[in-house]
Every structure is written in C-alpha cells, then in structure tokens.
C-alpha cells in the first residue's frame, strides 16, 4: 500500500481503527525519508529511534482505547527552528550546530500530546533568513519537482519532505512567507495563521513581531486538523491570543455562495508577475465564481512599501534576537589569543563572524544600522508607521470582502544559485507574502496546477485576523472543485 498517497486524516483514522499501526506507518515514512534524503537533503536530522518510541507509545495508548486526536500516531516533520529536548535544534546554522535545547516548544508539545510522531527536523535557511533554503549550514535542499530548482524557503525542507512523500505532515514557520512560498514552489498547502494563534514559545526567534508557526500538508482538511492541535493560548508567550479557537474543520464544507472575494489590483497587475502564475490566479477566480462567489476589485495602495518595510522591521528585531549568540552562553565559540588587548570583545566578534553565514550577518548589520542613534527615526520608526498603513489597507479591504485571492510568488520555483549574488532580487520574491506578516493576518498557499514546464503553481488566500476558518473553507472548496495536484513529486 502506498501510504504516502493517503491524507493524514485518513492515516489517523486507520490508525485509530487499528487497521494500521502507528509503528508500521512511522517505519514506512522513516524508510522513505532515509531513502530519499540523500538526494533532496530535506532533513537536518532524522530520529528513527525517537520516532519509533513515540509510535509505539501511540499504539499502546490506542490499544487502551485512548485516541488522543484524529491525527494520533501520524508522523510529522518539524522545521529545525522549533526547540525539541529530544533532538538537536540547529536553525540551519553553524552557530547552533551542537545545540541541544533544555526544553520543547509548545507547538511541538501540543503535537506530541495529541499523539503525533515527530520523526525529524527539516532543513531551512539559516535562522529562517532566506527564501531558497540555500543558506543552511547543512547544505541546500532540492525541489522534488525539479532538482535543479529551489524548494523555496525558509521552510524549504518542510515543503520538500512533504512533496516527496517523506512525511504526511510538516511544521514550518513563516516570518515573511517562509511557509507559503515553499508550499507554492513544492505544490503543497501551507498556512500562516493569525499572529498569536500558535504559541511562539520555543520557536527560535528571527523577527518576533512577524514570526508564526504554520503547518504544511497535501490536503486542506489535513491543514485544518493539525492547525486545530497547534492553536491555543499559551501563558508562556505574552503575544499569544486569548481568543477561543474555532473548530477549523467544521466549516470546510460550507457553501461559498455569496462570499465576496477580493482581487488585489497591486498584486495581479504587478509587472514582475509571471504570465503562467497570473493565469492560475485568473483560473482560480473563475472557479470561485462558479462556486457562487462574487469578485470585488480591491486596492492595497501601500503594497510597494511592504518589502522595504519588512526588510527594516525584520532585521531590526533580528539584530536583537541574535545578540544572544555571542560565544559565551551557547553556540559556536571561536578561540582567541588571551594576549589580545580585549580578548572578550575579540572572542564575541570572531564567534559571530565565523558562526553566522553571510545572509545572517547582512541582516544583523542592516538591523543594527537601522536601530542606531541618529537613524532610528528615519528607518525603524518610519517602518513601524508604514507597517500601520499597510495593516490599515488590509482592514479597509476586509470591510468590503471576505477573502483576498492572489499569487503567492511572482514566479514559480527559480533555479538554485540564481539569486545568490543578488540579495535585493531575492528579497523582492517576498513581494506578495510579507503583507500578511506585517498586518498579522492569516494567509494560505494552495496548489493550483502546473506550468507548461511542470513546476507547481499556487494561489494565495488572505483573510482578516482570526479568519482561518473562512480561509480553510475557501481553500477546501477550491481544492475539491479543481486544484488538486498530482500530490507527489516524481521521486
């Protein structure tokens, strides 16, 4: 039986019904992961032993009639940015190459409490900074659909592992599109929930006011099911939402009759938008109209400032968040001569120069500069003001529409190495995704067929704060009606 062709919910159903054991399912996916990872490098760490231990304990609980959740016993991959006390947590960096957290992230704990089985940690851009998974200290990850192309990033390992059928579920994190863009490049679903929906406790910080954990899966119903388990207030995270969590699966089947779908002028008419990506969005519009939705033209006038704003806010916060990697308490430490005039300063400077890769150093420098005396008002403060304008654009739009539909990325997965020497061009790939992070709203990427060359295409859905249920409803209806990829990449 090809287990990789079943949805996670279906796997969970069969495990709960004891038609399959978690152990055999976990062994099956571990075998695929181990077999395929040599070529794709989607994982930094695969932990068969821990995976099987958890699978057996899930089986044991189920045999006593204790089914912790609809996904109990189902394997899952965790992006290596979430702390796990049972596995190393590297953030794709030399700095944390040997770091073993003393605690486990709330998001991961929520999953294991629900009986899911983490089998490994997926590759990512160093400290989640990047959109191609090329900046990882542990080597780049390949796109299972076209191995000379990027899987996207920073959650490239999460998306690739899923596309290749190495796991039925994957957890990523999204600061400026890091779940949605790789999901789009790899032909899977990925959601960034409302800011605060999932606890950030144990999510190694890149840009605290933008970071959100987000799950990836092949099926919208799987996304809804796992989002349910991940969500909820956590008193260890002061920015975690106190709002009750709705039943995300309850509204999947709701009719779309009468819903208003916004078409973002600035996204659809952007000069950088690839024609095949644009055609996919237009196709999505038609499907939604057929399902009874009304299309409404909307404008997000500050779109052109979203990338510059993002690249001031995120690096500024990152420059503070990454200060703890100084070689003193944890992480890589460079040896320096004690004979130096200030061996301590030299040790800190050298540890950071050698422990961080070029992209992380670039962003830390950018953020440090933006926060410096004399520049704060012109850069960081101005960025916060524009951020508010961007959020207001969305608020105004959602007074007129229920969801926004657009492209996730300007173009499909690009060639490995293509943007390496041009960081600004790389940053512009985030054009359509950073807005949701800046505004704190939920957004989702779902597959929408393929280019003529066989690369996955995707649709971007954005909703108002706390509006995940509606997003999932629209995504589910779209997936049911038409946009269902062949699911697995030909590996």
């Amino acid at each position: 039986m090809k287990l990789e062709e079943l949805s996670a919910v279906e796997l969970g159903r069969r495990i709960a019904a004891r038609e399959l054991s978690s152990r055999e399912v976990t062994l099956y996916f571990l075998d695929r992961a181990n077999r395929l990872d040599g070529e794709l490098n989607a994982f930094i760490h695969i932990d068969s032993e821990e995976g099987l231990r958890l699978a057996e304990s899930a089986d044991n609980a189920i045999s006593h009639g204790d089914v912790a959740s609809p996904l109990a016993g189902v394997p899952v991959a965790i992006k290596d940015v979430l702390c796990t006390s049972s596995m190393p947590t590297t953030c794709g960096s030399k700095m944390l190459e040997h770091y073993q957290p003393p605690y486990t992230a709330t998001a991961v704990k929520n999953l294991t409490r629900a009986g899911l089985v983490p089998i490994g940690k997926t590759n990512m851009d160093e400290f989640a900074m990047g959109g191609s998974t090329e900046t990882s200290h542990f080597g780049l990850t390949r796109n299972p659909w076209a191995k000379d192309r990027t899987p996207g990033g920073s959650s490239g390992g999460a998306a690739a592992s899923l596309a290749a059928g190495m796991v039925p579920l994957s957890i990523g994190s999204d600061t400026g599109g890091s779940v949605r863009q790789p999901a789009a490049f790899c032909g899977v679903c990925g959601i960034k929930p409302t800011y605060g929906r999932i606890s950030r406790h144990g999510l190694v910080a890149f840009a605290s006011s933008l970071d959100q954990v987000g799950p990836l899966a092949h099926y919208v119903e799987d996304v809804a099911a796992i989002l349910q388990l991940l969500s909820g207030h956590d008193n260890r995270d002061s920015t975690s939402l106190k709002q009750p969590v709705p039943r995300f699966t309850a509204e999947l089947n709701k009719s779309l009759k009468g819903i208003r779908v916004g078409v973002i002028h600035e996204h659809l008419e952007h000069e950088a938008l690839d024609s095949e990506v644009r055609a996919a969005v237009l196709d999505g519009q038609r499907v939604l109209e057929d399902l009874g939705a009304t299309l409404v033209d909307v404008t997000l006038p500050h779109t052109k400032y979203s990338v510059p704003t993002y690249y001031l806010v995120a690096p500024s916060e990152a420059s503070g968040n990454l200060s703890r990697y100084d070689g003193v308490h944890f992480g890589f430490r460079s040896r320096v001569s004690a004979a130096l005039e200030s061996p301590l300063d030299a040790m800190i400077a050298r540890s950071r120069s050698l422990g961080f890769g070029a992209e992380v150093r670039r962003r830390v420098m950018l953020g440090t500069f933006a926060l410096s005396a004399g520049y704060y008002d012109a850069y960081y403060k101005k960025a916060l003001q524009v951020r508010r304008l961007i959020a207001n654009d969305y608020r105004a739009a959602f007074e007129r529409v229920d969801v926004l539909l657009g492209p996730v990325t300007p173009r499909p997965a690009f060639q490995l190495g293509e943007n390496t020497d041009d960081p600004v061009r790389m940053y512009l790939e985030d054009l359509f995704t950073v807005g949701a992070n800046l505004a704190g709203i939920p957004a989702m990427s779902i597959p929408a067929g393929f280019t003529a060359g066989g690369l996955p295409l995707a649709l971007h859905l954005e909703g108002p704060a706390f509006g995940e249920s509606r997003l999932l409803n629209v995504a589910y209806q779209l997936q049911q009606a038409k946009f269902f990829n062949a699911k697995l990449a030909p590996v």
Partner: protein
Amino acid sequence: MTAIPYTTVIGLEVHVQLKTKSKLFCGCSTEFGAPPNTQVCPVCTGQPGALPVMNQRAIELALLTGMALNCRIDEVTKWDRKNYFYPDLPKGYQISQFDQPICGAGYLEFPDPDQPEKLMRVRLTRAHLEEDAGKSMHDEAAGKADSRIDLNRTGTPLLEIVSEPDLRSAQAAKAYLTELRLLLTFLGVSDCNMQEGSLRADANVNLHIEQDGRSIATPIVEIKNLNSFRAVERAISYESQRQYDLWKATGQELGRAPKQTRGWDDTAGVTQPQREKEESSDYRYFPDPDLVPIRITAAQLSAAEKALGELPSAARQRLETTHELKAYDADVIVSQGKGMVVYFDKAIEAGAPARRVSSWLQQDVLRTLNEKNLTIEKFPVTAKQLAELLIAIEAGKLDNSRAKTVFAFWLEHPKADLAMAMNELGIETVDDGVLETLCRELLEEHPQIVEQVKAGNLKGLGSLIGAAKKKNPNADPKQVRDLCQKLIMSN
C-alpha cells in the same frame, strides 16, 4: 591663592531590587545566596526560543513606589530592549523601559540634614522597571584568568529611581538615600540591603564654580561601585575636591569633555576612571516585540493607593502633632522603620505617656537592639509590657533605675509580667511611713549634711540618696531627696 566658591551638584540613580518571590519575566526564585546557577531556567538564561512573561507583582510594587514618590503614572507603559554585549547578559540585551517608564516625574521630601525642622525636596526624573544582569566572577588566582558567570540574579526585578541634580552636598545625598531606603522599607517593596545588592546607587557629580560673576560647570562624572551610604558620602566629597583641583589645573568645562565613569575605591578612598562598557554607549533601544504594552487600570491604581499605608513623612508629622514629640525625637523613631512606629503606637495605645515611650525607645530599646543585633519585630519585650512599666514609673510605683532592672530582667525572661518581675527582683513600692522613718534615720546619721543644706548648699542631698539605697534599694531617689529637704527645712 584664595579658594573660589563652588557648589557641588549631585543627581543619584538608585537601583532597588523589588521584593517579588519570582523573577521579572520567569518563575525562578529571587532568593539571595543560593549556589551559582541553581535559580535559572530557559527564559532567564536566554535560551533560543524562550519568551519573557511579565511578573504582575513587580508592576504592583512599582506602582506603589511611584505613588509614594509622588510620580506621574501614565495609563500605558511599555518594555524596550537595551542592546549591549556583556558576558553576564545572556540575551545580549536587557529588557528595560526607555521612553514610557512606569513612573514619571515625582519628588521626595525629607528633613534637611542641616535644619531638621525644614523639609528638603528632591525632584525625581522617573522610575522604571528593568531586569538585573548576572554576576561575573573573575578567578585570577595563579594567573589563570578564569571567568565564571552566575545567572541566579539574572532577571531579578529592579526599579531604577533617577533623581534630578537637586542635591548640593555629600550629606544631602546621604540624607536622600536614607529617606529613600526608609520609604521603600516602609512600603515593603524592597529589603534595600546594600551588602546583598538589593539597593545600589550611582552618583552623577559636577561643580558649579562662581568666578568673575559667571557660573562655570565642570564635566559630569558618574561614580559607580558605591557599596554603602558612607561610601556615597565619602566618594562625593572626594570627587568634588578632585574636580575642583582638576578645574584649577586645566580649566576644563562641561561640554568640552565627555561624561566620564569613575569607580569608587573604598580602601584607597579615591575614584578611578573605569573602562567604558560601550564606547559610544548607543544601546539601540527599541520596543520589545515579545511583550505587550501594559495598561495601568484605575483598579490597580486604587489598590496601590489603599496599600500605601502611612509613609515616613506622615508618621513624623503625626508623632509631632498628636503626640507632641520634638521634631528630632519623632525623626529618630520614624527613621528606625515602620516596625518602630508600630511599636510606639502600641505602647501609646496601652496607655503609656508619649514622651516617656519616646525616650525609652531612643535609649534602652535602641541600645539593646544594637547590642543584640535584633529587629524591633523580634524584640523580646512587647510594647504592652513596656507600657505597663512606664505607667508604673509615671505613678511613682518604681523609679527609673529600678525600671531599668525590670527591663533587663524581661530581656532574659520575656514571659514574666510586671508583678512577677518586681517580685522576682524584690522590688516593691515603699509606703510613705517607711520612707519617713528612713529619712529621719539618714538625717540623724549625717548631721553635717543637714547643716550644709540649712546653709543653702543642696549638693549634699545627693549623697543621702546613695545611703538611702543601701538601706532600702526600693527607695525612690526623688522621693528621698524631696522628703529629706522638707524635713531639714521644717526643723
């Protein structure tokens, strides 16, 4: 050369450790003196992914202090990150408050050390909350230059109280600190123990020199490492003289030289230049995205107002007006702390006369507390017991010296009541007939004294008292004296 008149201008920055059970942003204990690194967790050691969660009690204590210091309290206060690298600062930034401190401008009033009947007012710039850093311990024995870090103290809540440069002498600075400590201990917000570091003071000092009709300011020097009130006083005196001498030698004025940091060397009795932590000291403050702004509610304010209780200045006032104590006496009692005021009030409530209570507290009680290194709360003689004793003196049942014997007895046998003590010590009230017989005997035995007294020389009466005590230790000296004089004169 004649000395040119100058004024010393002093502002103080006081760090007070708030008396919370747990740290400012995690649940770790703040107990002093535990073995190194035993009171730590992922949050206060700055582990990747760990998030701060504010301690509500610290807010309450800060509000209480702010109200007692007449500070403006705004509705919204927030947290900022102060960025700098230092080994005892595990996150690479300190969570502090930059532009919206919890307590705004206020003032503190206290008796002027030169004219105790007058009040001195020192304006306060602000008081803000922040987390403490850890402790670096340098083991330079045998040239090993081994540095160790203890993070037990990291994250302990501090309130930094910043004064305006309103103080004009070392004595005034000491008086300000003394009053501040008294106030904080009255409120119960801090132990204010300088040895344990729960109160730390830095002084900003410069001179205003009057020359040729204009006022010249010398560059401001910040003095650190002041470990006692005595050190504050000595360091400021030393620094004034040093700045005066330096100005005489160089003529350097404020603005021509940067603010300097100097450390106080208590053994050598000098201030010495300190290596600056950060040359430019650009801390790149920005709002901490891990914490939400705090809204101070009306309910919180009224709760703080209720919890304030009687403050030292009000207690002094009450002792002077209601109990007719001299300003000096009221100050001595109140300066001992809230416990002493409570003790005073209980003694009065039990019927003892205020002035007698005042004098006994200032002499016998204070001396015993000092000798036995006790606090008034642990004093073996209760306020009620003392009152009983003072009432007996007032009624002429026993004299002061016999009362002191009872007091000393009570220190050893705190359970005994006055009757038991007097019985045990053989103290009884001598009735009038017995006293007269005694005096007549005395006069017969000392005819020369009788002659002297008759001649107008009353000195001799004193020696009769000694003789009377030998015959009957319970004889009241005053009564003996008065009766002897009366008998001689009426003869």
